C-alpha cells in the first residue's frame, strides 16, 4: 500500500521549514540577550510581570526603554524578544496545521508552543518570586528550546523528507555515528547544566559547592572534547553523506572556540589562575574591570555558543538517525542501488519520500 492517507511533501513544509529556521535564529539571539541579562544581573530590573512597570509589555513607552538604565534596556528588550519568539512559534503552529496533515509534525510544533510558554512562565516566576534558582532553570530550558527549534528545522527540511542520505552505507555502519552524536548531545547538555551552576552560584553558597561545580565543569569539558573528536572520527569514517563530517568539523571547531571563551571568561572574571600573576609581568599587570564590555561579550558568547553546540549536536543526531528510520532490509537493498527516485511512505499520517532503487542500467 502506498499512501492511503494524505501526507505532506517538501513543498507543503517549505513555509514550516522557513519559519522554523527564523525561529531558531531568533531563539539564539534571545539566548544571547538573556545571557546578557544574567551577565549584568539585570533580571530584576523590571520588578513586575507580565507587565513592565504596570504597562502592557508592548505598550511600555519606548523612550523610557531606550533611554532608561542599561539594566532596564536589556531586561525589557529580552522580554520583547521573548514575546516575538512566542509569536513566531504561534505562527509556526498555524502554518504547520494549515499546510500539513502530518500528525507528528503538527504535534511537534505544538510541543514547541508548550515549551515556549513554559519557558515564559519560568521567566515570569523568576521575577515575581525574585528567585535566582528559577533564573538558572530558565537559563537551562533555553538551550533545550533552541535544540528543539533545530530539530524542527531538521524534520521540516527537504533532506529529511527526501531521505537522500540513505544510500551507500550498510545499516550497521550508520548506528555508530548516530550513537556518538546522541551521546555528544547528552554530554553537551549536562555540561550546560553544570555551567549554569557555575554561573548562577548563590552568593550565600559555601566555597566547597563552587569548587565542586567548577571542577566538574572542567572535567566534563575534557570529556566533551574527547567525545566530539570521536564524533568527528566516526562521521569521517562512517557517515552516510558528506554533510555530516562537515557539521562534525564545525562542531569540533566551535567546541575549541567554546573552550577559549570559557578560559577567557574565567580570566576576565577572576584573573589569571595558578599564581601566574606572581611570576609573570604580563599576568601581574592585568587589572580586571567589573562590567567591562570584553568580559560581558566573552561570557555571553560562552553561554550562546554552548546552546549552539547543543543545537548542532541535535542536528547531527537527526541527520545520522534519518537513515536508521528505514527498514533494515530496505536500507540494505538500497545500498546496492544506483541513482535515486522517490517512494512515498505514509505512516501515522507522515509521508516519507525515500530514496529507492531503480533497476540497474535504468536511465542509461
Amino acid at each position: 500500500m502506498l499512501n492511503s492517507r494524505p501526507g505532506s511533501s517538501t513543498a507543503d513544509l517549505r513555509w514550516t521549514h522557513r519559519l522554523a529556521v527564523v525561529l531558531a535564529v531568533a531563539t539564539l539571539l534571545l539566548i544571547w540577550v538573556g545571557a546578557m541579562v544574567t551577565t549584568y544581573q539585570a533580571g530584576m530590573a523590571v520588578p513586575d510581570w507580565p507587565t513592565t512597570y504596570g504597562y502592557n509589555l508592548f505598550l511600555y513607552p519606548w523612550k523610557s526603554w531606550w533611554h532608561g538604565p542599561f539594566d532596564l534596556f536589556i531586561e525589557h528588550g529580552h522580554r520583547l524578544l521573548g514575546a516575538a519568539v512566542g509569536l513566531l512559534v504561534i505562527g509556526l503552529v498555524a502554518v504547520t496545521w494549515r499546510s500539513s496533515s502530518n500528525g507528528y509534525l503538527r504535534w511537534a510544533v505544538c510541543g514547541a508552543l508548550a515549551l515556549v510558554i513554559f519557558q515564559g512562565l519560568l521567566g515570569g516566576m523568576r521575577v515575581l518570586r525574585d528567585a535566582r534558582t528559577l533564573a538558572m532553570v530558565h537559563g537551562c530550558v533555553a538551550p533545550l528550546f533552541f535544540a528543539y527549534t533545530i530539530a524542527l528545522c531538521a524534520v521540516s527540511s527537504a533532506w529529511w523528507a527526501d531521505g537522500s542520505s540513505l544510500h551507500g552505507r550498510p545499516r550497521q555502519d550508520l548506528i555508530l555515528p548516530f550513537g556518538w552524536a546522541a551521546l555528544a548531545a547528552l554530554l553537551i547538555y549536562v555540561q550546560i547544566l553544570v555551567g549554569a551552576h557555575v554561573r548562577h552560584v548563590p552568593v550565600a553558597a559555601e566555597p566547597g559547592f563552587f569548587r565542586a561545580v567548577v571542577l566538574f565543569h572542567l572535567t566534563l569539558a575534557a570529556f566533551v572534547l574527547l567525545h566530539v573528536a570521536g564524533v568527528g572520527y566516526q562521521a569521517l569514517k562512517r557517515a552516510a553523506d558528506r554533510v555530516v563530517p562537515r557539521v562534525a568539523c564545525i562542531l569540533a571547531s566551535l567546541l575549541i572556540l567554546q573552550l577559549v571563551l570559557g578560559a577567557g571568561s574565567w580570566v576576565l572574571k577572576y584573573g589569571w589562575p595558578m599564581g601566574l600573576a606572581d611570576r609573570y609581568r604580563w599576568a601581574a599587570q592585568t587589572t580586571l574591570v567589573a562590567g567591562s564590555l570584553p568580559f560581558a561579550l566573552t561570557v555571553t558568547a560562552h553561554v550562546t555558543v554552548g546552546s549552539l553546540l547543543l543545537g548542532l549536536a541535535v542536528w547531527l543526531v537527526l541527520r545520522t538517525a534519518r537513515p536508521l528510520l528505514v527498514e533494515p532490509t530496505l536500507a540494505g537493498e538500497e545500498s546496492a542501488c544506483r541513482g535515486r527516485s522517490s517512494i512515498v511512505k505514509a505512516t501515522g499520517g507522515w509521508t516519507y519520500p525515500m530514496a529507492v532503487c531503480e533497476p540497474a542500467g535504468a536511465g542509461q
Partner: protein
Amino acid sequence: MSGVGNPEGIGSQGRVPAPIAGGSAEVRIGGLGRLPVRRFVAVLVGIVLLASFGCGAPVAEFRTNELYLIHQEFKSEPLPASKRRELQQNLKDLMVALFGTPDEPYFPEVEGVDIRRVCDPVKLQMAAGPVRLERSGAPRGLYREHCAHCHGITGDGRGPTAEFLNPYPRDYRRGLYKFKSTPAAEPPTHEDLQRILINGIPGTAMPSFRLLPEQDREALIHYVRYLSIRGQVERTLLEATFQTGDLDLTEISLEQLKAPENIEFVKSVVADIVTRWAQADYQATPVPPPPENFESAESIRRGRELFYGPIANCVKCHGETALGDGQTTDYDEWTKELMPNEPDKVARFLATGAALPPRNIRPRNLRLNVFRGGRRPVDLYWRIRNGILASGMPAASMKPDDAPPDDPRLTSDDIWHLVAYVRSLPYDDLSAPQHLPVYQRERQ
C-alpha cells in the same frame, strides 16, 4: 506539488514511486510510536529537577565569626557544647539587634558621630539586600551584585568563589586593610577605599569598578565600612566573653542584656569602633615633599644602601634580588588567627568550615613593576612609611625630630630614596635580561 489530498501518495517530485523489486514499498518508522506527550512532560520535569539540583539557594544571612570563636577557645579553654550554643545564639541575637540583617541593615546611633559620614543609612539600603532596580531606577543589592561572591555576605572573605582566588578575598571583619594612607593600625580613609574601588588591584581578582556610577561606588564603600564595623564589634564582644569578662554571652540572654550596665558596655564598644572609623579621614600620614635629588642616580644609590641596610632591612623579605624570595614562610594577619603552624588546630578550623586552607604570604616581587596598592611615588611612600601591618610588612623606623644627628633611624628623605630605588628596580638589567638583544647579552 502538495501532498495534501494526494491519495496516491505522490512524492515531492510528483512522480509515482516505483515499487522496490522484491521488497515492500512500505517503510516502518522506528521509534515514532504514539505521541510522546507524557514523555515530553517527564523530560521537562527532569530538566527542572536536574537544573535545580544542589541549589536550594541558601538563605543570605550573617554568619557568626566561628573562626574567632574557635581561636578564643584555643586561647582560653573550649566551651561545653550547650554553653557554646548559648553563646552563638546570644551573639547572633545581639548582632541582629545592633546591626540588622543583610536584607535590612541597621546602623546604631553613636553620640557625637555623624553616622551619615561613616555608614549612611540611605547608601546602606542601596548596597544591601537582593539585586534589583527600584521603580525610580535606583539600584539595590549592589554588594551582592559586585562583591559578595568573593567577599561573602558577612564580609568574611569566604564567598563561594574565594577558594579559587589567590590571594584570598579580604576578610573585612578585622577592619584591617593593606593599601591605605593611614598608620598601620588605623582604618583606611574614605579616599583610600575609593582609590581601590576605582583602580582595582592588578594581578588579583579584585576588579576596578571605574565603570560603576559614583553613587554606586559610594554605597559600596559605606557598606564595606558597615561590615568592618559590625565584624569588629562582634570580635570585641567575643573578647569580652573569653578574656576581659565584661560581658559573658554564655550566660546573658538578649533580655538580660537590657540591664543598664550591659547596654552601656555594648554602647561603648560600638562608639569606640565607630569613632575610630569616623576619625580615619583625618589620620592620613602627611607626605613631605621629596628631596630635590629624588630619583637621581645619587638618590637611587642611597635607596639601595637602605634597602640592604639593617634599619630598613627590606632585603629580609624581598630577597637579595628583590624578586620577593626572601622570607616566604610567613603568614598574613588573617591566616595567623588559624594558628597555621599547629596542624591539629588548623584541621579544627577547616573542619568547621570557618576558614580556608592557610597559604604563605608572598613578599612582592619588586621587579615586576606592579605594585598592588598603586605605583605612584606617594603610594610607595605610604607603604614604606606605614608598612602593611596585615601582611607582616613593618612600618619604617622613623627618626624623631629631636633625635641626635647620628641616630641611624630613617628620615622622610630616606623613605623617598627607598621609593626611588624601588621604582628603579623594574628597569634594572636583572629585571628583564631576556629583553636584551642577543649581542648585548653575549657582551655582558
